């Protein structure tokens, strides 16, 4: 992370808890870049996270109010805090397992209410922290510690889910698309209403190791190769779309 961003970090926190090569470290940097670009004041912000590796992105690192809650419940806690103090820019940062598996109900209901929250979901397709079990975001066939023969269920399309529930702003980018991702995070912080950014992140330790991405770079390369834009996707046949993920903005301005 650039030295210029150190002012956003709690001085007594010396290092992040992430494994070497973890995508969440990149995301941590990009969130602070967006905050820096917008010149937001940390004393007007609240960061809420659930439980999981991704939940350690803001907490205790960011030098602001950081609320580390229960597994799955970050959005519900954030709703309460935001309702009572609407002036707070409230940002939820958590993992796919946290926000979309155990916490999926809170996520869709907050989107339905279109409450003014920013939710950043670091999707590494697995429960990283607990040792790599299949989540509701794990791809078909993924090898995990609870699907040693390959996952048999389809993953959620989180963006479609949240759009369906009524969110105002919905975007998906990967940590390998830093410029677009910073822009999306900035929009998610400025738009009124429920804003959701799905960030494709990497877990080399739990996902990579089991699925033959032998190094953190291999995982990043995989993301780079699989992420395509809507325009690119339109030119591809269903067969060519296999293994591809569409990134971009899917909903802007709400309904």
């Amino acid at each position: 992370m650039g030295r210029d961003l150190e002012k956003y970090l709690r001085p007594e926190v010396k290092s992040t808890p992430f494994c070497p090569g973890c995508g969440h470290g990149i995301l941590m940097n990009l969130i602070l870049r967006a905050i820096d670009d917008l010149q937001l004041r940390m004393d007007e912000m609240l960061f809420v996270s659930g439980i999981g590796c991704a939940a350690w992105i803001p907490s205790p690192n960011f030098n602001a109010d950081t609320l580390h809650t229960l597994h799955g419940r970050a959005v519900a806690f954030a709703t309460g805090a935001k309702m009572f103090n609407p002036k707070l820019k409230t940002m939820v940062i958590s993992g796919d397992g946290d926000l979309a598996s155990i916490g999926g109900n809170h996520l869709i209901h907050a989107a339905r209410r279109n409450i003014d929250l920013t939710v950043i979901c670091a999707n590494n397709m697995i429960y990283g922290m607990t040792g790599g079990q299949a989540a509701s975001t794990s791809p078909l066939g993924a090898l995990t510690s609870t699907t040693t023969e390959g996952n048999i269920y389809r993953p959620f399309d989180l963006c479609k889910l949240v759009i369906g529930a009524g969110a105002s702003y919905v975007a998906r980018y990967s940590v390998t698309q830093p410029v677009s991702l910073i822009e999306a995070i900035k929009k998610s912080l400025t738009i009124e209403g429920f804003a959701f950014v799905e960030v494709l992140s990497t877990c080399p330790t739990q996902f990579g190791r089991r699925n033959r991405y032998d190094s953190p770079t291999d995982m990043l390369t995989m993301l780079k190769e699989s992420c395509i834009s809507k325009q690119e996707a339109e030119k591809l046949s269903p067969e060519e779309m296999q293994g591809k993920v569409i990134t971009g903005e899917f909903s802007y301005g709400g309904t």
Partner: protein
Amino acid sequence: MRKVLTGNVAVAYGAMLSDVQVVAAYPITPQTTIIEELATMQADGLVDMDYIRVESEHSAMAACIGASMGGARAFTATCGQGLFLMHEMLHYATGARTPVVLANVNRAAAAPWTIWSDQTDSVSQRETGWIQLYCEGNQEVLDTTIMAFKIAESLRLPAMVVLDAFFLSHTSEPIDIPDREQVRDFLPPFDPGDLWLDPNNPRTFGGITMNDAYMEFRWQIQRDMEKAKAVITEVHEEFARVFGRKYHQVEAYQAEDADVVIVVSGTVASTSRDAIDLLREKGQQVGMVKLKTLRPFPREEIIETLKGKKKVAIIDRNFSPGATGIWAQEIRNALYELPEGDRPLIYGYIAGLGGRDISVKVIESIYQKTLKDNRPDDVDMWIGVNYV
């Protein structure tokens, strides 16, 4: 066959040998290796079961109840926050009379977050109507998992196998793996009688009751919990006949002639045995009682064992804010009916919360304090706390 297994893998062996038919589970440290091991056993064809990777512990227990109502032998495992999230379903499992078995790895409660051991999670489920069986070592964990199915199914009450986080869950010990065919003889397939979701005999379950019937349902649970004491003893005895290992709801060690009796549960029992051996070598009249069952509480046996003792020191690795440790509450409650002359003085100690070590030294200091003080200085005494 003998193997070196962690407590968690021992649970998985217990469930596998019991021919469990449905497992629904959600990962949580330090339980996760139980359900990972079961997933591997299924993939290796060692057990013919359905494995549901649910999205939360609440769903895990709901799915187990559903499967059990369909006549299946259902199992899950969790700990700490996961057990708290299941709470609503735990009550339901009892009311629906589904003999689900759950392994709970004792983990302390958030906030603040911790993954280390104490009994707050399981003792907080005391009133849910689950049989609770605490374990001291990994052999006991494996054996208790098998016995839990037999106890639960014969009473149509759910049962929880409880083991300490890390001290058992992640510590390896050499243990005997019971022979599969012998286990099948000991634990025949679950027979739900005529109380199950039988498509050929459609019935409605989970309906509403009025105040003329609800109490009777509750009373039946209580009646069967009381019966459970005898059932557990019978199952322990049958297990001992077949497999040669005997377990007790209340186990006394060197307590016969003891002036001070220390009462413990879980892994603290092993440490206490060592402490008592050392103290006995120094000529101290000290003994120990290990409790295996919190529910049903073995009231009669406890009264029998502690009657006439001078001092009883209870070590609780849990506590109820505003009251005392849970085992101390239970024992005080049971012993009150003794005539005053037979009623021991109760010294309640709170120790080892959030995984803090309860070492031989700690147990020795508890003994020394109990011996020295003519009366306890408080209703419970916290060991090793830096008061700030």
